[in-house]
C-alpha cells in the first residue's frame, strides 16, 4: 500500500525534513501548522497547508481534534507527528486509529509501555537489561523514601514516571533535601504531565549519555549503533555525535543486543531510541523514546540510511532492505543545534525577523533548516532554528570541519548560540572525548564574555557610520568608543 498524501503535524526543520522525504517518495505533503508558523520554510515547501489553530501549542499542535479534523478533511491517509508534541501520545495514536488514519510510528501499546518510566524499567529488568539502582514502589511515604534513598546512596534523582524531556526531575544530594525534591518533582509532574507518580534512582554525577537507535519493520528489529549526547544544558541537548568516542565494537554489539531485545519485547515498529547512562565502565538503561529524535541525522550520516523514509516505508507496511551485519558505522558525524538565543546573556531566547543568512557548503556538511530570510522567530516554541551536521573520516577531523563550518555560518536578525558552540568544540574536555553530562555545568556555567570585533574603528569607517544625526551615534558596546 503506497500513500498518496500524508499530513505533517509539526514545525521547524523537522517538518521540512519530513516534507522532503515524502516528496522524494512521490507522496504529497499537507502541512498542519499553527498561525505563526505561516512564516516558515515548511509552509512554503508543502503541497497543501491547513491551519490547525492559534500559536500556543495547546491550541494547535497538541489539539487532537484540530489535527485529526485537518488530516481527514484534506484526505490524508497517514500522519507523521515528527518529534515532541503528539509523537509519544498513546491516546492520540488510538484517536488516529478511530479516524482510520495511519499514525507513522509505533503502536499505542508500545508507546504506553515505554512512556511509563516505571513500567519501562520493569520490562528492562525482565529482559535482563541492566537498570539504574532505584526504588519504584507505589508507597511514597517520606520516611520510606528516605530509607530507600539511603540504600541507593546519595545523590538520588527523583523522577516523574510520566516524565520526559528533562522535566519532572529533581536531584536530592542528602537526606534533608529529599523531602523538598519529592514535593517539587511531584508538583512539576502534575502540572506538566497530569500524573504525580514519582520514583527514585541513583544519580550518576559523572556519566555519559549514550543512546542507541533502533528500528523495527514488520519482520525484525534493527539497531543502528549509538549516539553520544553528553553535551547538554538543563537537559536540553546541544551537541550530539555518532559513534561515541568511548564505545568500541564489542560494546556496540552489546548495546545493540540489549536495545533490540527491549524493543522486541514491546513489538516495536518504526524508529525508537534506547537511552543509557555510561558510568564507571558500565551501561545502565535509562529510558526509551518511542519517536524519531532530533539528532537522528548523525546516525544517518555514519550508517548511510534515511530514517524518515524508512519510517514512511514501514508505515506503508513494506519491509526494510537493511541487513544487520552490514549496519556498521563509517567515519564520524557531529550535529550542532543552532538556537536563537543570546549566548552572552545566559541563553535568553532571541526573537526577531531573520534579516539574512548564509550557510556553509562543501564536502561533508548538511544543514537542516526551518526558517529563511524574512521569517519571524517567535517564542511560542523552543528556540532551535537549525541544525548543522557534519561528517568526516575521524572524530578530530570532524570537529575541525564543524568549527570551520560554524565560522562560515551567518545568521542576521537574531542572536544565536554559535559562539558557544565554537567554544565547546575547541574545549580540551570535549576534544578528548571524555566529557560527561556535567560538561556544561563544569565549564560553561558562567556567562560568555563578548569579544569585540577586531579593528572596530576601521569597520565603522568602512560602513560609514559616522554621525548620521546629531543625536544618533554608533558606539562600540564593548570598548565604549564613539565613532
Amino acid at each position, binding site marked *: 500500500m503506497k500513500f498518496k498524501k500524508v499530513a505533517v503535524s509539526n514545525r521547524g526543520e523537522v517538518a521540512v525534513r519530513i516534507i522532503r522525504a515524502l516528496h522524494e517518495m512521490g507522496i504529497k505533503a499537507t502541512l498542519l501548522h499553527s498561525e505563526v508558523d505561516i512564516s516558515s520554510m515548511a509552509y512554503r515547501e508543502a503541497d497543501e497547508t491547513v491551519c490547525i489553530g492559534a500559536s500556543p501549542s495547546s491550541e494547535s499542535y497538541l489539539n487532537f481534534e484540530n489535527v485529526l479534523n485537518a488530516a481527514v478533511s484534506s484526505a490524508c491517509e497517514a500522519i507523521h507527528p515528527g518529534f515532541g508534541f503528539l509523537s509519544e501520545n498513546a491516546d492520540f495514536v488510538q484517536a488516529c486509529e478511530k479516524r482510520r488514519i495511519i499514525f507513522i510510528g509505533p503502536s499505542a501499546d508500545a508507546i504506553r509501555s515505554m512512556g511509563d518510566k516505571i513500567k519501562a524499567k520493569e520490562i528492562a529488568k525482565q529482559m535482563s537489561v541492566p537498570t539504574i539502582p532505584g526504588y519504584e514502589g507505589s508507597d511514597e511515604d517520606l520516611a520510606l523514601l528516605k530509607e530507600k534513598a539511603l540504600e541507593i546512596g546519595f545523590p538520588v534523582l527523583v523522577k516523574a514516571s510520566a516524565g520526559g524531556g528533562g522535566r519532572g526531575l529533581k536531584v536530592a544530594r542528602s537526606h534533608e533535601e529529599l523531602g523538598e525534591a519529592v514535593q517539587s518533582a511531584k508538583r512539576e509532574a502534575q502540572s506538566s504531565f497530569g500524573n504525580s507518580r514519582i520514583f527514585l534512582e541513583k544519580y550518576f554525577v559523572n556519566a555519559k549519555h549514550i543512546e542507541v537507535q533502533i528500528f523495527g519493520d514488520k519482520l525484525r528489529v534493527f539497531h543502528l549503533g549509538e549516539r553520544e549526547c553528553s553535551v547538554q544544558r538543563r537537559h536540553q541537548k546541544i551537541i550530539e555525535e555518532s559513534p561515541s568516542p568511548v564505545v568500541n565494537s564489542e560494546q556496540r554489539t552489546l548495546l545493540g543486543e540489549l536495545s533490540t531485545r527491549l524493543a522486541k519485547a514491546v513489538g516495536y515498529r518504526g524508529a525508537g531510541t534506547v537511552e543509557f547512562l555510561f558510568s564507571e565502565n558500565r551501561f545502565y538503561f535509562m529510558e526509551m523514546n518511542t519517536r524519531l529524535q532530533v539528532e537522528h541525522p548523525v546516525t544517518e550520516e555514519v550508517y548511510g540510511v534515511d530514517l524518515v523514509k524508512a519510517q514512511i516505508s514501514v508505515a506503508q507496511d513494506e519491509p526494510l532492505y537493511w541487513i544487520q551485519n552490514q549496519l556498521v558505522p563509517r567515519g564520524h558525524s557531529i550535529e550542532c543545534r543552532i538556537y536563537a538565543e543570546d549566548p552572552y546573556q545566559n541563553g535568553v531566547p532571541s526573537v526577531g525577523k531573520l534579516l539574512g543568512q548564509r550557510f556553509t557548503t562543501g564536502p561533508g556538511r548538511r544543514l537542516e533548516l526551518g526558517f529563511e530570510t524574512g521569517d519571524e522567530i517567535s517564542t511560542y516554541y523552543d528556540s532551535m532554528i537549525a541544525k548543522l551536521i557534519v561528517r568526516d573520516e575521524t572524530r578530530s577531523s570532524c570537529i575541525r570541519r564543524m568549527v570551520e563550518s560554524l565560522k562560515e555560518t551567518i545568521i542576521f536578525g537574531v542572536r544565536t548560540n554559535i559562539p558557544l558552540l565554537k567554544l565547546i568544540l575547541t574545549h580540551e574536555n570535549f576534544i578528548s572525548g571524555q566529557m560527561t553530562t556535567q560538561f556544561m555545568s563544569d565549564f560553561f556555567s558562567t556567562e560568555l564574555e563578548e569579544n569585540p*570585533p577586531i579593528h572596530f574603528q576601521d569597520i565603522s569607517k568602512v560602513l560609514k557610520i559616522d554621525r548620521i544625526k546629531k543625536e544618533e551615534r554608533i558606539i562600540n558596546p564593548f570598548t565604549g568608543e564613539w565613532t
Partner: protein
Amino acid sequence: MRFIHHDIEGKRHCIWLEESEVGFWVHLDGQTHLLKRQFQRGGGTKSVDAVLENIRAPMPGRVTKIMANEGGKVLAHQTVLVMEAMKMEYNLKSNVEAVVKKLCCREGETVTQDQLLVEFETP
C-alpha cells in the same frame, strides 16, 4: 545582505553586513556581531562606558525574583531580576553600573515581550 572587502593592516577581510533598525549586523573573521545604534540625548562629547539600557522582558514570562531596590545601585553584570519563561529561568542584568530609578514590575507578575521591567537613572 551585502559584503564588502576591506584591508585592515595589510590583511584582506570580507565583511558581510545587513542594516536593521537596531543597528548593523556584521560578520567577519568567522564571527557575527550586532553593532547597536545608541541614542544619546544632548550630543555630549564625553565618552560613555558601554551602553546603559533599561531592562525589558526578552520574551513573555513571569518575574520570579527582584534583586534590586529603587534608588539602589547595581554593578555591571549583576543580576537585577529573575524571570521564568518556557520552563527555564533567566537572570536579567544590567551591562553597566547603574542606579535603579524605578521598578516597573512586581514579583510574581506575568509580563509581555519588551515590557519595561526596570528603569535606570540616566547617567
